[in-house]
């Protein structure tokens, strides 16, 4: 996969799989030996957020910064002081933004902290996700995220999946969707993910289709409480 | 000889349940005459409040919906948004509109909800037997202000038209009275204007009608009208507080 800038912002539609991708990327970068900070910027969503995985991330030596009341019973979007310094940390600093333009709006206030710095903003898409499953909507969504966050995306991450129904065909077929979105918004595709616990890379090639994108295996961290290993 | 005055068609031939001399009956008639003159009965839906006039759904010939206490403007909002070509009015008393239903009233006006509100202010809770209303006057004796309304303790009366006139969504806010023939005729004009504004889609219109409660005021019908003139009109001056289509006080 292409080498990314030190500041990595992950954005996308609600439920496109931003959080799961962010956690995977953080774990990978840490494995490569870099210091990694993962900031949970989602103050919109009450559940299923990257800070849910603090313990695991912590154990791997990844620093997690979360909103003050994340995972509590209080519904107040308070930004901790630490978040302001997250842009100046050594190593990789990942920001898991909230979904949609609503979640991206939170990023707007950090505009000054980012100005002048190099960053990558990854737009996570899922071709099976209602409301962005057509290319036009996926493009519109990116534009509203960009305008709310005052930042420009640099790559597309094709994170198409259908939870338990995901198979090799789902992944292969999603590449065409990703190409179209890529064309529509004029951004390169960083990778196409696949859930490594469910599908092997060979199975995707075995479908007979042409793999045009970098395949990136992801573990499924974001789970419901009844999904046990 | 021609009939120059008779019961309007929009009133059913059902005797009112109000006390003798209670001016609800006059106000009902003005609403019904308006509906007749505008020819809108077939597509008018009224919303009845909780209070003495709760049963007005039996009196008006148009379709009627009875609302929870204070919620008439919200119910009317639902009716109007469901069928915008219908004419929707609420008929509410002071407790209903200006105490429990303050939020619903204010926000219907805030939205410029295209409905007409007929607000009957008689400065007392009639239905429950004469308790303090939000519009009860300073020092007014009621069942729950037995020593007179002490404004330092129970607060001051609320002037609804003045308050709603400050809102952008209000098209018409006018206070009238039904204490004499001339005022009744003015009240009629105001009510008709309020309905007309709805037809013209101008937004929220409210006509506050100063009214009596002989039973709970402890006065006969004529004394009640005099009390209204002497006490209510000075506190609640008649007039147009907002009119998007004309002169405003």
């Amino acid at each position, binding site marked *: 996969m292409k080498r990314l800038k030190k500041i990595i912002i992950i954005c996308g539609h609600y439920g496109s799989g931003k959080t799961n991708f962010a956690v995977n990327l953080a774990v990978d970068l840490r494995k490569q030996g870099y210091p990694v900070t993962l900031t949970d910027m989602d103050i919109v969503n009450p559940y299923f957020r990257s800070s849910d995985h603090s313990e695991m991330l912590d154990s791997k030596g990844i620093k997690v910064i979360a909103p003050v009341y994340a995972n509590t019973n209080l519904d107040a979007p308070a930004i901790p002081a630490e978040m302001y310094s997250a842009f100046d940390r050594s190593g990789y600093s990942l920001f898991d933004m909230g979904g949609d333009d609503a979640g991206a709006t939170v990023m707007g206030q950090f505009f000054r902290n980012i100005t002048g710095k190099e960053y990558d903003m990854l737009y996570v898409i899922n071709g099976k996700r209602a409301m962005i499953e057509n290319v036009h909507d996926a493009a519109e969504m990116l534009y509203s995220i960009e305008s709310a966050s005052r930042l420009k995306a640099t790559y597309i991450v094709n994170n198409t999946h259908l939870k338990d129904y995901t198979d090799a065909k789902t992944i292969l077929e999603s590449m065409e969707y990703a190409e179209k979105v890529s064309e529509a918004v004029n951004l390169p595709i960083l990778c196409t993910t696949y859930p490594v616990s469910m599908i092997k890379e060979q199975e995707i090639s075995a479908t007979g289709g042409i793999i045009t994108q970098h395949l990136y295996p992801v573990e499924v961290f974001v789970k419901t409480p009844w999904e046990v290993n | *000889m*021609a*009939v*120059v*005055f*008779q*019961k*309007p068609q929009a*009133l059913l031939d059902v*005797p*009112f349940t*109000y*006390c*003798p*001399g*209670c*001016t*609800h*009956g*006059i106000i*009902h*008639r003005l609403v019904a005459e308006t509906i007749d003159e505008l020819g809108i009965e077939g597509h008018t839906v009224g919303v009845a409040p909780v209070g003495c006039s709760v049963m007005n759904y039996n009196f008006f010939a148009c379709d009627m919906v009875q609302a929870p206490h204070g919620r008439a403007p919200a119910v009317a909002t639902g009716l109007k948004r469901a069928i915008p070509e219908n004419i929707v009015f609420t008929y509410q008393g002071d407790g209903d509109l200006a105490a429990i239903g303050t939020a619903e009233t204010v926000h219907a006006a805030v939205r410029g909800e295209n409905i007409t509100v007929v607000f009957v202010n008689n400065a007392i809770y009639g239905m429950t037997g004469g308790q303090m209303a939000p519009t009860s006057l300073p020092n007014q004796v009621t069942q729950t202000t037995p020593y007179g309304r002490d404004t330092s303790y129970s607060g001051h009366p609320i002037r609804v038209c003045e308050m709603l006139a400050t809102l952008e969504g209000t098209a018409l806010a006018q206070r009238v009275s039904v204490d*004499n*023939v001339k005022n*009744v*005729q003015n009240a009629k004009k105001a009510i008709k204007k309020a309905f007309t504004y709805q037809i013209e889609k101008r937004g929220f219109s409210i006509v506050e009608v100063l009214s009596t409660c*002989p039973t709970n005021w402890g006065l*006969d*019908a*004529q004394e009640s*009208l005099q009390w209204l003139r002497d006490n209510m009109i000075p506190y609640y001056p008649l007039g147009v507080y907002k009119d998007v289509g004309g002169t405003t006080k």
Partner: protein
Amino acid sequence: MAKAIIDETKCKGCGLCVAACPRKILVLSPDKINSKGYRPAQVVDQSKCTGCASCAIMCPDVAITVER
């Protein structure tokens, strides 16, 4: 020649019409009680009626019809 016709069955004897009549030709019946138990209003001198409808305008029970 005008006429105020009072529906005695609807009248509650509140007297607002009596007070409103500029010709003072209405009274509450001194000797009659209607089915509701009220003394209904009545016109004492129909010939003086101008058909101004003041009585009807003030009647809270819509009990008066006026012809002219």
